[in-house]
């Protein structure tokens, strides 16, 4: 694990509430995440993990509380939203590549369209990204010609192509066949070691233990317990945490 170079808080969430109709998915969630920190979010299905990270890049709008990303407060100002989106990369569980674009075009797309980079520069950047995730030879193929693991690595390369400060991962290996999980986790591990700030929702506990600086445990829309991986493996406090860990380990 890398030593943290700074204590700068890059994501500040305070008392965040999120409602879907009459259902409250987040109940006063607060968390401060420092630059370079790797946070793994755990919790049972439906506990609000996805909703929380989707609020950070405003795929969901929160109703109350405060979210500040790299000094930019999330509010109704669409310029702020645009800025945050270019600083926060996200990798979904699935359906994550444009099927009608080649792998290279998928990765080069955002630099070209958002950063207005010339085609050639964007493609060079994209190739560098594909090399970083270990699949430069797949550049001219279409997504459906790749394995699930390769597709997910392309999705990571694409997020990295915007040179984000923060990467969000929502169960990036849950839709993959077991033999492909490792190649994706390897790429993420390398990313963590490079000092990227990461929030990862995952059930891969071995991986989580290895890369995480901190676990956040969600239940019923709240952070019920948080601490280092060692704390969770050796000394969990809450009954709900213990129950969850006993089911997953």
């Amino acid at each position, binding site marked *: 694990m890398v030593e943290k170079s700074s204590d700068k808080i890059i994501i500040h969430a305070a008392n965040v509430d999120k409602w879907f109709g009459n259902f409250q998915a987040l109940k006063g969630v607060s968390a401060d995440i420092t630059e370079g920190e790797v946070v793994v979010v755990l919790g049972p299905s439906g506990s609000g993990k996805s909703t929380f990270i989707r609020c950070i890049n405003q795929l969901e709008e929160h109703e109350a509380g405060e979210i500040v990303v790299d000094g930019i407060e999330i509010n109704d100002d669409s310029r702020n939203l645009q800025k945050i*989106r*270019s600083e926060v*990369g996200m990798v979904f569980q*699935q359906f*994550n590549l444009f*099927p*009608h674009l080649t792998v290279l075009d998928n990765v080069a797309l955002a630099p070209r*369209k*958002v950063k207005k980079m010339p085609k050639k520069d964007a493609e060079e950047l994209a190739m560098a990204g594909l090399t970083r995730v270990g699949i430069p030879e797949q550049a001219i193929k279409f997504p459906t010609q790749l394995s699930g693991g390769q597709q997910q690595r392309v999705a990571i390369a694409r997020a990295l192509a*915007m040179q984000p400060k923060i990467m969000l991962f929502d169960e990036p290996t849950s839709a993959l066949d077991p033999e492909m999980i490792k190649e994706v986790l390897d790429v993420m591990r390398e990313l963590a070691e490079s000092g990227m700030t990461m929030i990862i929702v995952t059930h891969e506990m071995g991986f989580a233990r290895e890369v995480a600086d901190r676990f956040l445990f969600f239940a019923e829309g709240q952070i019920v317990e948080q601490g280092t991986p060692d704390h969770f493996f050796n000394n969990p406090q809450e009954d709900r945490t213990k129950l969850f860990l006993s089911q997953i380990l």
Partner: protein
Amino acid sequence: MDLISEILVTPFMQRALIGSLLLAILLGLFGVFIVPRKLGFMADGVSHASLLGIAVGIMFGGAPLMWAALVAACIGLVLARIEDNERLTLDSVVGIVLVGGMSSAVILMALTPGYKPELITYLFGSLLSISWNDIYLLIAFFVVTLFLFKIQWRTLVLTTVHGELSSVLGLPTSAAKYFLFVGTSVALIAGVKLLGVILISALLIIPFSAANQATRSLRGSLILTECLAIIGTITGIILSYVYDLPTGPAIALVFVALFLGCVIIGRIKSRPVLGPEHNH
């Protein structure tokens, strides 16, 4: 052969054919983006509510369709704004707009004295109602719209294939969205003399829905959509002329038949490319 040459030398049929060709291309194209985004009902709401504009035109003078286009453009603008609002779902607002527009139109009509023969034209379309002026206006609208499509093409495709992903990547999506909503709304009104406000959404929704049953690729469904839109409209117009049927219903029924045909073909082939988006 006789029939074809007869049709081709009849001026009102010339106008109807030229007009329908342009409309089929335009509305087919908008449909490629409207249907996968599940905005089909919006089209019905806009066209029905625009009857208010027609009523205003009939009552107070001025070209009814210009009023209707104004009403439609405003509704399109408002709906585009509302699309992402979590407190109002789009389809409930569309439902309210539809009911509000149509009811006030009918009441306005009831308050206007005299017989209104043109009303049925606006409701179900009529071949005879299309003038050369309409065609010139339509050509201008066609050119401008295709130009805007060219500018917004990539963003439209990306946001339609995967809207959430486009947002996450920070792609500028809102200009394309406003173009889509307002452009579709006005294009629907452009087709009112052909199909009428009640049925015009058929030309927007059915060609793509049918094409999407039978092809897998984006390009394939685009081409097939346009082919079906053109074939369906022209066949409907000819049937309406030959058997003296109301134009709008004749075209609409041809489209329903084409759709069923494509469903059958599609059963033999495989799944659509531009399906509704799945998330988590």
